[in-house]
Every structure is written in C-alpha cells, then in structure tokens.
C-alpha cells in the first residue's frame, strides 16, 4: 500500500521521540539502497539547509519611546540609514544599505566593509549600536533629534523579515569579456577564468520540494539560528522547470520565499554581515526547512541528488547586465562541486559562494531539534504558487 502520512501523525511521532529524521544528504543514500517506497515508509522528515548571501533581507525594529518623544523621520544605525517612513519609532534596516557617505564604487572596486547586514549581525551579537534620529517635531512628538546607543535586548520588537530568500536555484556565473568584473557573484576573471555558483544543491530547501507540496505559508523553519516561518512567496517567485530547446529537463528553478522570525532568538554565526568587493554589502543567512515525508512523491523529490540538479551558466561580462536572454548551457551541481566545468569547450575552475558545510550543519541542527521533540512541523495555511501556475517575470520598460 502506498504511504500516506498526515502532519498530525508525523507530529505525534516527533512528540513521542519516535520520528525518523534524516538530512537531505543522508536520505540520498537511504533511497539509493532501499528505494523510494520503502524510504517513504521509514522516514518521517527530511531536513534541508542553505547558508548564502541573501540581499533581500532586513529587520523591523521598534526602538522604544524617548522622553520627550520623537516621531523618527530619519533613522541611522551605526551611520547606516534605516527606513523610518512608518509609525513613530518603527524602522526597517535593510541588508544592502550603506553608511551615509560610503565611497561605494567611486574608488572602484569598492570594499563595502559595512552595511545594513553588518548592523543586523552586530545587533544579534549583542553589540551596542549607535542610533541617530531626526524629525520635524509635532505637538505630540516634540523632540527633533536624538543620539544614543541601543542593544537588541533594549529595544521592543526586532523582527527579521526577508522579502526574498532561499532562492530555489541560481546561475553559475562566468565572464566572457576580456576584463575582470566585480559582481554579486564574486570576482569573475576574464575569458572564462573562473565560474561561481551559489547553491547548496542537494541540500537546498526549494530544490527538494520543487512543486511546493509541503513548503507553504506558515511553514516553520530554521532561520538565522532561531525559529522562523515562511511568510509568503518571495518576490520574483517564478517557479518552473529548466528546459533546453530539445525539451531536456535540467531540474527546478525560480522559486523564492519571504521569511519572518524573531531576531532576538537568532545567532550571529547564522546571520553574518557580508561584503562583496566592487558590488556591495549584504547579509549571509542560514535557513533550513523540514520536509514532512507525506508520501512517495514528496520522498522522490526530497531525495534527488547533485547529479539531477543543474545551474544555468550565464555570462556576467555582458549578457546578464544587458538582460540578454539565454544561457551557455547547464552544469550539474555534481560537476560544479568537482571543481571544473566545461563552458564553450573550455575547462573552467568552479567555486561556490554558498557554504555547503554550513548548509549541512543547518540540516543537522534542524534534525536534532526535531528528534528532541522541540520543533514540530506545521501544515501550510495556504499553498504557494508552484510550477503549474506558470508565473513569469514582468520586465520594467523605460517610458519617456
């Protein structure tokens, strides 16, 4: 009889300390040995993980009321502007925001040593952060400026809310041009000098549930070392299957997640301020998602390997920046992890930007939480758009 399990049944086993939990890496060998049917029967949860720079990240902070009160109109945290166009002492600090007066790329390539992601990291690490705010003054909020120090413990709420995280898949970036380029995919040497990819491949959450059978609104996840939730689909969520002109399938791509969680319980080693030489500042986010093995179909996807999953190879020397469609072919994560791929007939050294060892560690931590009965699974309150919805990107036209 085909396996069918419910969330309630799996949670009952977790509470009883009897759930069988494997990481997305461990489950591969089990399925290879016993087959999908038996593995689906035996395993209750598969845990995934990823640890990558995720630029679309930030935190909502409620800074508390000073005496006299101020309606903060502009806010800076360690000189990095935070968006304050919401209620009096609420602000949003975005990961890629740069300090006021940062030379950015004026002395090319810029170093981007500090930014919003670093502010978030400092807060989570318990460091005092300098707060500056200005306002125009009102009868109810008379103060016009303020300068003080805050810590994460002092302020009221701090909520990490990342509008686009956990990219299902990502480009493998190369450079066909004749000069070195500095991108969000790292430094790319001219004439196919190197190839950079950015995914945990077979450990990466959305590559293991490509049809969004279990990951949906309200899914409880590992976020930044604490517990978070899937809040919505991410921005630019266009899940689908990669196909070439002959119809060959190169695995899933295009899905993203918006995630949310209490910053106060997160850990500085899982939210790390990040600098991309010549590109900008960001935040490296640790994220892990449990996949309940409800049936064989879920297990089949959860056990796919680096050989089945591929990244499209894209030229960042020209094609990416100029939005020229197409790619230079696909490379499997197995090939990428071997250290060399072939592009246009040339052997190109390949390196990751996303930490596979940290992804493995996240999947293992999540596994431990579940095994200890500390972390229960949640059934999505609403499904997310999946490949069958056929979402595609709108482009921005320049109208004059």
């Amino acid at each position: 009889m085909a396996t069918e399990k419910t969330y309630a049944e799996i949670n009952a086993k977790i509470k009883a300390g009897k759930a069988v939990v494997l990481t997305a890496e461990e489950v591969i060998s089990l399925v290879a040995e016993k087959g999908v049917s038996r593995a689906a029967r035996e395993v209750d949860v598969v845990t995934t993980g990823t640890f990558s720079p995720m630029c679309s990240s930030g935190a909502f902070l409620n800074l508390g009321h000073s005496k006299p009160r101020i309606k903060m109109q502009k806010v800076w945290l360690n000189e990095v502007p935070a968006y304050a166009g919401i209620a009096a002492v609420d602000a949003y600090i975005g990961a890629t925001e740069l300090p006021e007066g940062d030379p950015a790329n004026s002395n090319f390539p810029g170093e981007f040593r500090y930014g919003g992601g670093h502010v978030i990291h400092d807060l989570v690490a318990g460091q005092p952060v300098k707060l500056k705010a200005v306002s125009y003054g009102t009868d109810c909020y008379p103060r016009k400026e303020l300068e003080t120090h805050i810590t994460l413990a002092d302020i009221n709420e701090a909520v990490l809310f990342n509008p686009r995280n956990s990219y299902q898949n990502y480009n493998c970036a190369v450079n066909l041009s004749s000069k070195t380029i500095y991108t969000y995919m790292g430094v790319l040497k001219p004439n196919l000098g190197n190839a950079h990819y950015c995914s945990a491949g077979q450990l990466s959450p959305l590559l293991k549930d490509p049809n969004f059978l279990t990951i949906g609104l309200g899914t409880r996840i590992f976020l930044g070392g604490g517990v978070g939730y899937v809040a919505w689909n991410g921005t630019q969520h266009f899940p689908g299957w990669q196909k070439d002109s002959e119809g060959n399938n190169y695995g899933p791509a295009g899905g993203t997640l918006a995630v949310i969680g209490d910053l106060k319980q997160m850990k500085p080693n899982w939210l790390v301020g990040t600098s991309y030489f010549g590109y900008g500042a960001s935040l490296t986010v640790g994220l892990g998602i449990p996949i309940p093995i409800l049936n064989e179909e879920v297990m089949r996807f959860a056990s796919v390997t680096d050989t089945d999953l591929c990244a499209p190879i894209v030229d960042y020397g020209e094609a990416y920046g100029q939005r020229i469609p197409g790619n230079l072919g696909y490379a499997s994560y197995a090939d990428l992890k071997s250290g060399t791929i072939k592009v246009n007939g040339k052997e190109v050294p390949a390196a990751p930007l996303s930490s596979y060892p940290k992804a493995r560690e996240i999947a293992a931590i999540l596994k431990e939480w579940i095994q200890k009965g500390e972390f229960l699974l949640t059934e999505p309150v609403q499904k997310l758009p999946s490949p069958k919805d056929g979402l595609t990107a709108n482009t921005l036209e320049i109208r004059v």
Partner: protein
Amino acid sequence: MSPKKIVLRFGGDISDKPIIYHLAKDYDLVFNIVKANVDPQKEGTMVLELTGEKYDQGLAFLQSQGVKVQPLTEEVIINKEKCTSCGACTALCPTGALYLHRPSMEVDFNGDDCVVCQLCLKVCPVRAMEVRF
C-alpha cells in the same frame, strides 16, 4: 650573511625576461625560489631567499626592470572562527593556498603556498583573511 626573503611582483611584459638569471650572473647572488606563480595573464609573483655581497645592487636592478620588490615581513592568516567555508576565495587565490576539500567542501588554507598577494583579503565576503606583520 643570512638569506633575506623578498616578494617579487611583475607584470606580463617582463615575465619572459631572464631577470633571475642576471641576478645570479651579474650580481653573484645566491637565491632559492621559495614560491613562484605566474597566472594566465602572465602577472607573476615570486618569493625568493636571497644572499650575496651585491644584494642591494641586485634589488636595484630588479626595480629598474619594473619588478616590484617587497620584503616578506607580512603573513596572511585565516581566521577560522570567521571563515564560513563559502569557497568564494578558492578560484581566485593564484596559488591554491586557499582550497576546497572535496567532497566535504570544507575550505582550508596552506600558508606555505601563500604568496601574500592579499587578493583574498578583498574578496572574502566575511573578512576571514587577515594580514599579520
């Protein structure tokens, strides 16, 4: 006189010239090539141990040939606490001093292969590479 360690950096235009040969022949210097690296664009780095009476003249000759000479007093180290094993440095480090263990994908650093070009200090997204004087 004990040998001094120096780093030579040279551009593509001079990497073909027999400058090291001249150091030995014209200046009687005894050298030991500790590390040498020439990357695809032919920009090279070489770490030499050098001894001899005409040491200063030898260095002046190198500089006259457009070679940048620097005493090797700096050392690059990895801060293991900070390094996330992301791998972003591994295809860029010109000597393979920063490399990935496969298939574990853990990043490791072998200081013996490092030519102190300091590229990793700039490209490491989390500033895990540090220079020590």
